[in-house]
């Protein structure tokens, strides 16, 4: 029965040689996490997204095409923002507690898998899911926008060539701009930051619901962190207790308003490349720091 075991008792151990850091191991964990989330049928929300962006036009039928495009872009980018955020928080929040409760964590960590790689694999799995979701939504959004753009051009009617060219240019100016891609990158980075933060919270939170609630609170406070920082650093009239509170908010919470330039991008503002790169770099640093903090806590966690 045990002919499969070719290794006799006295031979050198194990079929494998442990590597201190193994990208392949991390990817095995990441792809497993991605598969888990995909098989939870999370992508059905894309149907809702499609309905939203297509259905939003029902409210603006009587509007000019520029207004219609504006609303379409705003709704699509806003929906992308909320969906990616929800996906980030909800899918990350349940990863660790589920593994602990169902004891799959024990079987994984009983293998030669460092805790760091386990956590990194989980995070990368979620980030990959977010990337796929963002890409699919972007594809849908661009498709609908292009279709509406072509419809608007087709309805321009007969006019002299130079006027037609100017009209087509006006239509196209209302739809696509390179900054839209930058805006979508920011939507992704914001969601990725929230995922990393949620993972950090889940390393010490006792329940999933606690993790989700704290993530939601941090999300909202993160949007006023800039205000708190401003008051703390510049306003001399603030009392000492208030100053301490403002300092706490400024130091502990992320500044999520930095990523909210999407609204201006949708309105047609151009995003300078330097600002795009700096904001993106800050987002990546946030993700890394939150992950590091989560790793330190997870490393100490009694299982």
């Amino acid at each position, binding site marked *: 029965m045990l002919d499969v075991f070719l290794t006799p008792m006295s031979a050198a151990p194990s079929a494998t040689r442990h590597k201190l850091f193994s990208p392949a191991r991390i990817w095995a964990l990441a792809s497993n996490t991605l598969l888990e989330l995909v098989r939870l049928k999370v992508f059905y929300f894309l149907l809702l997204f499609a309905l939203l962006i297509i259905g939003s036009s029902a409210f603006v039928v009587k509007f000019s095409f520029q207004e219609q495009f504006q609303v379409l872009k705003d709704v699509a980018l806003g929906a992308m923002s909320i969906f990616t955020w929800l996906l980030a928080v909800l899918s990350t929040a349940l990863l660790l507690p589920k593994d602990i409760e169902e004891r799959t964590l024990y079987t994984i960590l009983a293998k030669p898998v460092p805790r760091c790689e386990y956590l990194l694999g989980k995070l990368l799995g979620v980030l990959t899911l977010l990337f796929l979701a963002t890409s699919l939504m972007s594809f849908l959004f661009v498709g609908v926008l292009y279709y509406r753009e072509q419809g608007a051009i087709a309805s321009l009617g007969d006019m002299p060539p130079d006027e037609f060219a100017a009209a087509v240019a006006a239509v196209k100016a209302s739809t696509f701009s390179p900054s839209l891609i930058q805006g979508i990158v920011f939507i992704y980075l914001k969601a990725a930051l929230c995922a990393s933060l949620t993972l950090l919270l889940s390393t010490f939170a006792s329940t999933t619901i606690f993790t989700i609630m704290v993530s939601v609170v941090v999300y909202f406070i993160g949007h006023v962190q800039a205000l708190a920082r401003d008051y703390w650093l510049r306003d001399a009239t603030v009392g000492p207790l208030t100053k301490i509170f403002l300092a706490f908010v400024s130091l502990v919470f992320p500044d*999520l308003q930095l990523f909210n*330039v999407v609204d201006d991008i949708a*309105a*047609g503002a151009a995003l300078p490349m330097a600002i795009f790169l700096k904001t993106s770099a800050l987002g990546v640093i946030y993700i890394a720091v939150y992950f590091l903090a989560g790793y330190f806590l997870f490393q100490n966690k009694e299982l």
Partner: protein
Amino acid sequence: MPNEKMKPRIGNAVVIRHPSFVVLLLLAFGAAKLLPEAALTREQLAAGLRKGQLDLEMRQQVGQLAFVAALSGFRAIVADGFWIHAQTAWERVDWARMKLDFDIVTSLQPRCVLFWEMSAWHMSHNASVAALENRAQPRAALRVRAAREFIATGEKYLLDGIANNPGNARLYDMLGMLYRDKMEDHCKASWAYFQAAALPTAPMYVHRFAAYELAQCPGHEREAYEILRALYLKSEDEHLPTLLKWLDRLQQKLSIPPAERVYNPDPEKSAR
């Protein structure tokens, strides 16, 4: 006695065990990011981004839920919601409500040129005409005054829009049209069109319109003539009826010697 080897590791480095280390890490990171974040915020504001007004006044205007949504990164959607609300107010001919909504929308999305443009158009064109024709107001003077107030509101929207979007030719173009058609102030119209013409995204016609309005601004006829002459000589594409009409008019008004005239509307008459 604590087991040294059991302490958590990164590679072979021993990491401090106590959770307070994580708190210190986050606080240290918070301190390190403070100034870069503030600097990046200033950079974004300087680039004309994140100008949406999100203060207590806005909170009063939009309500708590909308304010929280706007604060949470959904400023554009909240603005669109109020824009749609403004359109339904327009269908009810509720100009006051429209103005309130336009104020909210333009405050939330100051970088959206479309909102400034449409708000100005509704006020200066639709609302002003409705005021003029308002038979519920028997006194003509009051109707005219109301109309002028709406036109002034439209002007303000365009000026505020320009302040928030300085590089936008369209708003100057609209301003020129407002001055020309609604205020009949050709000097101001000319100024607005010239501002538009100086911007790279300006449509071609604004150069001509600037000259036409300048021609109607007392004391600037010569200047207008020189501009129209230069346009005429520049390209045959500029030989449009209105330009030709104004060129001819100015040539006559300024008594330009025939030999110096670039445009002759009736060559046979000249020949005779």
